[in-house]
């Protein structure tokens, strides 16, 4: 440090460093704060955009049309129950696939696999996580539906809710597995050793010691998986059919429509319907989007609670 010769006194002024260094420090801090604020701006923009456009839609639509017996935006029928049922069916089928496979994989990786097997097997899930959803949509349409849904359950339609649900389930496996595995892995070894010490078998340790100890994380993984399944779009858009309109039904072996599917088909097919007096059916997508946003947000906040409980426990 250059300073006037002989002046070795320590002053607050000198400890602060040179002005140039301090200015740089302050500038960097300001830039970092700006970058951080952008995430907040995005959140606010999402909420404002959804609410503002939803109000416009609700002001124009005849509210009775939100409770008819089908989702046919072109004919002015916006039955919410139709797409709720579709969404629920797809998500439940997805979880029937993803919960056992994801949790099984998580438990194997955390409790049974040696470090080297773990390193070798984990890329399977990571690769699966990297597969884009359009690809799984194609897979659901071309493979799952003809082979599984039509072959096993005797469906006749090319597009079925069931095939879409299975496709979404495959997409959700890696998410469930990774969150659940983190939770099981975080269980302290002392618990396992104590159980082994009094003669427990491996299976007993895994199911009666580790699983209960990690149960918050397991629940979190399932909620998060469900939320992901609710928001999945492309698989449904390709494999569930009913893009032009859907009737209200509970049969998973028929084509159907979900909230995400409804948004995407409005987005790509709406141009022709513009100009309807007063009401633009296109605007329904904002309303459905807002509902979807609130639903997934509620689930994510819930799963975050459970994850925090895991952290507190250990």
């Amino acid at each position, binding site marked *: 440090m250059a300073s006037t010769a002989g002046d070795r006194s320590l002053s607050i002024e000198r400890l602060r460093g040179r002005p140039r260094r301090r200015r740089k420090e302050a500038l960097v*801090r300001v830039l970092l704060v700006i970058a951080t604020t952008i995430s907040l701006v995005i959140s606010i*923009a999402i909420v404002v955009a959804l609410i503002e456009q939803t109000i416009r839609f609700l002001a124009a639509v005849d509210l009775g049309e939100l409770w008819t017996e089908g989702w046919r935006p072109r004919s002015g029928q916006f039955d919410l129950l139709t797409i709720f049922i579709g969404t629920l069916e797809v998500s439940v089928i997805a979880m029937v696939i993803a919960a056992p496979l994801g949790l*099984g*994989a998580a438990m194997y*990786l955390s409790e049974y696999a040696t470090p080297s097997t773990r390193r070798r097997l984990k890329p399977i899930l990571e690769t699966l996580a990297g597969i884009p*959803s*359009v690809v799984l*949509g194609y897979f659901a349409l071309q493979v799952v539906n003809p082979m599984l849904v039509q072959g096993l359950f005797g469906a006749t339609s090319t597009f079925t809710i069931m095939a879409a649900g299975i496709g979404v389930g495959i997409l959700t496996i890696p998410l469930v597995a990774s969150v659940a595995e983190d939770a099981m892995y975080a269980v302290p070894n002392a618990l396992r050793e104590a159980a082994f010490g009094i003669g427990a078998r491996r299976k007993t340790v895994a199911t009666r010691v580790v699983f209960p100890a990690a149960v918050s994380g397991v629940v979190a993984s399932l909620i998060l998986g469900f939320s992901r399944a609710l928001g999945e779009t492309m698989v449904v858009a*390709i494999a569930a059919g009913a893009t032009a309109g859907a009737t209200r039904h509970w049969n998973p072996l028929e084509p159907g429509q979900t909230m995400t599917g409804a948004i995407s088909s409005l987005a790509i097919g709406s141009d022709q319907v513009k100009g309807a007096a007063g009401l633009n059916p296109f605007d329904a997508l904002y309303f459905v989007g807002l509902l979807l*946003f609130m639903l997934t947000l509620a689930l994510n906040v819930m799963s975050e609670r459970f994850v925090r409980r895991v952290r507190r426990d250990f």
Partner: protein
Amino acid sequence: MSAIAPTRHVQTTVELALRGRRRDVAGRVFQGGLLLSLLLSLAILIVLLGTSLSDAWPVLSSRAGAFVTSNVSRLDVRAGVRQGIVGSMILIGFVAIVAMPLGIAAAIYLQEYARDTRINRLLTTNIRNLAGVPSIVYGILGLVVFVQALRAVTGPNVFGRSYVSGGLTLSALVLPIVILITMEALRAVPRSIREAAYGVGATQWEVVRHHVLPYAAPGIFTGAILSLARAFGETAPLLLVGAVTGYLSTPGGRTPLEILQGQYTSLPTQIFSWSRLAGDGWKANTAAAIIVLLVIILVVNLAAILLRNRYDRRW
């Protein structure tokens, strides 16, 4: 003390009792079941790749080169994915330029600078929640903000449905993921390194720039690659911000700005629109486009995994 040797009978009985039933059949079955659930994922991957390859074979065997280098066409035998590949590359270029620096900067602030105040906790929670918002909702955000409100800037001649809108939408989608991954990588750098640097008089930024970031770099880099791969395969939000699903003309001789403000498509968008067309020719085209997409994404993911395994270190 003289030890009385136990009879052989007692010895074996005790030994057996201690060891338990010799074979834990239920345990083995359970372990097998768990392993099976993991291997089933592998089987799904193999079937998926296998069917895509066999569906794509008519195209890959006869005109693989032309398929990658030709534009969209109404004729299935002439259609190709060049525009999709170029479009996806430009889009993730956008993400790399916009979302990466912003995400890394925000992560540095939250992990290194921010004190544990209520506002900062709120910011982190907010980012976690943003990461869980369905991608199609980001599409709606892009539609309202970039396509409609900022139309004059993003694409005055194409109703705002341009690369700029698509790229910014994908950037918003990936930003929270980049922030979370970078924060994790920064968290893994031990305190002692920071303290040592502070101890010799470094300022906060100098500590971050010269000591924390280099140590966290492999983790950040891996995360960045994976986020780019995610953006590359993303389709749903692009449908809302106007990626072209049908015919697209890309005339030559435009300035870079004109291209960025012009119409666009992406590889996944092409796959989506082709998957809805009837006929074996289009099915083969769809499968071939999927193979191209998967090859790109799997190579990128593999690079990220190798990079992580190579630099995975623990303190």
